[in-house]
């Protein structure tokens, strides 16, 4: 581990406490899953609604452990070249040109074309190289294609990459791997079986109030509790996209930006765009704003 100050905590409570120092409040379940992942060196798959802090956990863990955060954002059509490594063809061509002009092309210099110098490292190769100095975040894995999942399987079990021209690169130690999924599709069981699994649900009112206190300390106590209550009422409504914790924080920040120190019906309606991101939902909530923010 790169930060000699960091040692894997002895207990779940200790990890919870440490995460708190980097402004992340983990409940007991999440802290246990994280601790097991740290101890056993297994990837941790986090699923949950949007905006409950899946990605944030990886960032905070990187900060806490002093490891480098390597992020691979998945998208439809991502292929191994974009995730693993690529040869820098343009530079190789220029190099060949230069060699031939100076009549330097021999077996050794040609062999040098496939050396580290011309290798473009992508996140997964970076993570393998960094080994236990890295936190690898594979974000929104559900967006990638099934083929990519199969490719990841191999990497996650051995942590080694074979580059035909260079050889096999294997990790000195295991990076801490966090995978996140928004469950837009079911992941393959084979991938899940290699990971520890945790479902992050919405926090309770008191947990969420704590989170807002830590993440938005400038907000008044009154505003914080009113916003959290309102968000919980929103989650109880039949909305297409219920707000996550990220939206709660956005709302508090938005209210702060317009100088509000209390949540009333009118200020709520004005800033609703920071919590509700769907037109139908917006209409439903605006017409029923007194239910979300009582006492007008």
């Amino acid at each position, binding site marked *: 581990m790169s930060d000699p100050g960091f040692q894997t905590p002895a*207990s*779940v409570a200790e990890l919870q406490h440490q995460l708190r120092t980097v402004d992340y409040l983990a409940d*007991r*379940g999440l802290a*246990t*899953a994280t*601790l*097991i*992942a740290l*101890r*056993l060196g*297994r990837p*941790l*798959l986090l*699923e949950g609604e949007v905006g409950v802090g899946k990605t944030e956990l990886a960032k905070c863990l990187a900060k806490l452990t002093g490891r480098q955060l390597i992020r691979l954002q998945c998208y*439809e*059509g991502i*292929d191994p070249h974009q995730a693993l490594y690529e040869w820098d*063809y343009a530079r*190789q*061509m220029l190099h*060949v040109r230069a060699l031939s002009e100076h009549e330097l092309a021999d077996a050794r210099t040609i062999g040098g*074309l496939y050396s580290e110098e011309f290798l473009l490292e992508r996140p997964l190769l970076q993570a393998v190289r960094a080994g236990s100095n890295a936190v690898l975040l594979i974000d929104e894995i559900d967006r990638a294609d099934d083929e990519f999942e199969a490719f990841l399987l191999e990497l996650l079990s051995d942590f080694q990459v074979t580059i035909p021209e260079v050889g096999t690169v294997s990790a000195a130690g295991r990076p801490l791997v966090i995978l996140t999924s928004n*469950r*837009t*599709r*079911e992941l393959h*069981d084979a991938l*899940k*079986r290699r*990971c*520890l*699994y*945790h*479902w992050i649900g919405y926090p309770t009112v008191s947990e969420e109030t704590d989170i807002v206190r830590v993440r938005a300390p400038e907000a008044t106590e009154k505003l914080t509790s009113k916003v959290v209550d309102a968000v919980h009422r929103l989650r109880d409504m039949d909305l*297409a*996209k219920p707000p996550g914790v990220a939206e709660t924080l956005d709302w508090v920040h938005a209210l702060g930006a317009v100088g509000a120190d209390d949540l009333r019906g009118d200020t709520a309606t004005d800033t609703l765009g920071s919590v509700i991101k769907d037109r*139908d939902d917006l209409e439903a909530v605006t017409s029923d704003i007194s239910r979300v923010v009582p006492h007008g």
Partner: protein
Amino acid sequence: MVTTADPGIVDRLVDFGTALRDAGLPVGTDDVLAFCTAVAELTPSDQEDVYWSGRATLVSRRDHIPVYDEVFRQFFLHLRPPSAERKPVKDMKVPQGSTGTINVPDTEPGEKEADEPPLVLGLQASSLEIERTKRFSACSEAELAAVRRMIARIRLDPPRRRTRRYCPDPSGARLDIRAMARQAMNLNDSAPVLLRRDRKHKTRPVVLLLDVSGSMADHSRNLLQFAYSMRRAAQKVEVFCFGTRLTRITPLLDRRNPDAAMRLASERVLDWDGGTRIGTSIDAFVKAWGRRGMSRGATVIVCSDGLDRGDPGTLAEAIEKLERLSHRIIWMNPLYDSTTEVPPTLAMAVVGPHVDEIASGRDLASLEEFAARLANIG
């Protein structure tokens, strides 16, 4: 591997894994091993640590969490299973008044025929001559079975979409610089060749929403067969049935034997031959599945005659949402054929502006024609 824990505890943990397996969770030996290692690492102070270690190592789906909770409660806390109303596995509610399940006849009907002595050896034409344009509603049971056999043989060409990935293609639109560079290096000084590449194509996801209400009863069984064939032809096909409510039957159609698949599906769907509420059913699809991305970029095929008993306002809203979430909507209406006007039902008038294509599917010929056209619609 697990050295620190005392053997008695390990036995108990392994038993717990077995109990979970008995409850239907896919718990492998390596999962149990990971669980034991995790517990040993944590040196748990109370049962909560054991609970969360198990949750992280033995559960890999959100739907399994309630089952896990239940087994944990019984195994470690020795609590008795709760009363029947709190079943750990989500159960389908049966709406009042619609208890009927129907039997889909096998594609080989009438076992009595087996008793008759086989008179002719060798090839024999089916005694049932099916007119390709005979309406399904006018077919007898035996004819329908023959029709289903023929539907199973319709060659389906699912719609395709371009992906972001490239593959070599001699008539492609772009030059494949990377491959050319690679080849130029190998060829040394001989003449370079132009290599091209183009986008790969992939089958588009297809979502089928089948109306199984009373007015569609004759067609829906055939459509189920159609859905089954489709499920085998294309990679991503999702099938739902609806009457008064929506049921997802995709996993049931994975059976290799079509008759078994049909039977399972018809047992699962509880509102066969009931009323129709197209609007609420489509809305249910949009809320539970569409929003999550199931219909994104997909061709959605709704098979319904549009005889709706629900509120047209709900239908209008639902179909508008569905239109925004999907690539194409095709409405298959057995009351329609290409020579006549679109049937003037209220529902058809409401969905008209949002639907890309109206197809018939009332007889075999129109189904075949539709199957052939499908690739071009998407």
